[in-house]
């Protein structure tokens, strides 16, 4: 589903954000990307949805060669992906319903599809009863659930999350990670960049560790810190 071969990302100022990274993520997997701030977790995700363009290597996402993608094909790639951020990125003058529907409307969806799909994802994230509220009237966890609903409304096969619980308290964090797990169980490939040790250690899913733009650990059923898991696979 996601494949990186010898990928690097060097910013124009010379900073090497990603350094010769190779990684395979299968369909339906749940993967944590961990590491300290500034080790390239976000950069790696940005490469996948072509917010950043790699300076070397091959990137394939859902059969699309992202590294070679022409500019005008980027929207097509993004419709295959859902992306969620730490700061939710909701529109404050739109209701929950409108924020979620927005993602369909601006990609030219038919109204009847919007009317069918929006209630489904709102139900999935448990916000049907708050669909007419504005983001400022919601808790952080509810705002993030709205953002997740928006990311899922176009039925992506892949959900990318960049520090999804970074702004949330422990209760809301648990709520969101449970939701991500549910989404994963429905068949969506989920990649979560986080430095929240508690979340990673509780979930015991595949953990890919980044240090200074390189993969230093890749464990099935891993822990946040290297060497604590079983079946450790090193690559990078």
């Amino acid at each position, binding site marked *: 589903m996601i494949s990186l071969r010898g990928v690097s990302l060097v910013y124009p100022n010379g900073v090497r954000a990603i350094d010769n990274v190779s990684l395979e993520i299968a369909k339906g997997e749940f993967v944590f990307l961990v590491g300290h701030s500034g080790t390239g977790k976000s950069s790696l995700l940005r490469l996948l949805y072509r917010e950043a363009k790699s300076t070397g290597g091959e990137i394939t996402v859902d059969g699309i060669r992202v590294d070679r993608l022409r500019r005008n094909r980027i*929207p097509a790639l993004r*419709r295959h992906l859902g992306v969620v951020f730490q700061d939710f*990125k909701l529109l404050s003058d739109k209701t929950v319903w409108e924020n979620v529907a927005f*993602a369909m409307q601006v*990609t*030219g969806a*038919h*109204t009847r599809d919007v009317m069918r799909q929006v209630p489904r994802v709102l139900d999935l994230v448990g916000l049907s009863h708050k669909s007419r509220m504005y983001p400022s009237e919601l808790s952080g966890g509810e705002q993030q659930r709205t953002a997740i609903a928006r990311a899922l409304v*176009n039925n992506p096969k892949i959900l990318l999350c960049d520090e999804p619980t970074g702004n949330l308290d422990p209760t809301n964090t648990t709520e969101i990670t449970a939701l991500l797990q549910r989404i994963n169980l429905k068949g969506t490939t989920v990649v979560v960049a986080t430095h929240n040790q508690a979340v990673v250690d509780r979930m015991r899913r595949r953990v890919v560790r980044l240090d200074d733009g390189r993969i230093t650990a890749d464990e099935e059923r891993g822990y946040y810190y290297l060497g604590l898991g079983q079946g450790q696979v090193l690559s990078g």
Partner: protein
Amino acid sequence: MDSGKVKFFLGEVLRNFSRNTGMQATAIGTVAITIVLLGLFMFARAELAKLGATLLDQIEVSAYLRPDATPAQVAAVGRVLAQDPRVATAQFVSKRQGLAELRERTKGTIDTGLLTENPLPDKFRIKVRDPDDVAAVAANVRRLAGINNVVYGQKIVQRLLQLGAVLRRVSVGVIAVFFVVAGIIISNTIRLTVFARRREIAIMQLVGATNTYIRLPFICEGLLAGLIGALLAVGLLAIARATLLPRLLEALPWAQLTAAPLDTRVLAGELILVGAAIGIAASWVSVGRHLRT
């Protein structure tokens, strides 16, 4: 096209248009001022052109015949003039007619009764269709047998023609400057509205909206601002025309201004089109800059 989509799209345009009222007012005001200036300028240009044309229209070529010109030569000159497509009218004025006209013109100042014989030669009085051709027609007639001398307001004609050419060039330049200035101001205004909506644009890009789709509402906003500004300007110009122009005509009778040198409906249409074009072009450029980054 399903109606829900159209409703959503128009709703977005109107919502954003009314949300950034201050900025939109700036854009509309700029368009209005530019177009009022453009309209005044075009009016002034039309007046000047008409004034020049009136002066040039009054120019006539006098081709004086030699005293010993034979009737055959006179008839030949008449034929040449009649066949020349550049000549509007060519009228034979005999010396008797000429004297009668002179008497009429100088009545009370010169006593032509003192003349013992008619000193005037026969002549052709020639009017040319296009003032640009005056010199060429005069030169052509001068070569004919039986013609003594050809006279027209050489210097005046030359000056007027030069002035006309200069005015045309200057006016093209001035209009171009108007366009550039208005375009820059409006595109800056729209850049501010683009900036105010950068979150929305970022989300649209994130969920896979095409650049065309992201651009479209801004283009519509630019178009709307341009149209409203142009309509305001045309309204102001119409009011000015109805109230100020009659007074101007009274105050400056020597300028021979008249109120109908322009087809005002065509001009109004052109000015509105200009406003719409400025709005579209400016928003296209400013959103494009944002999308590229």
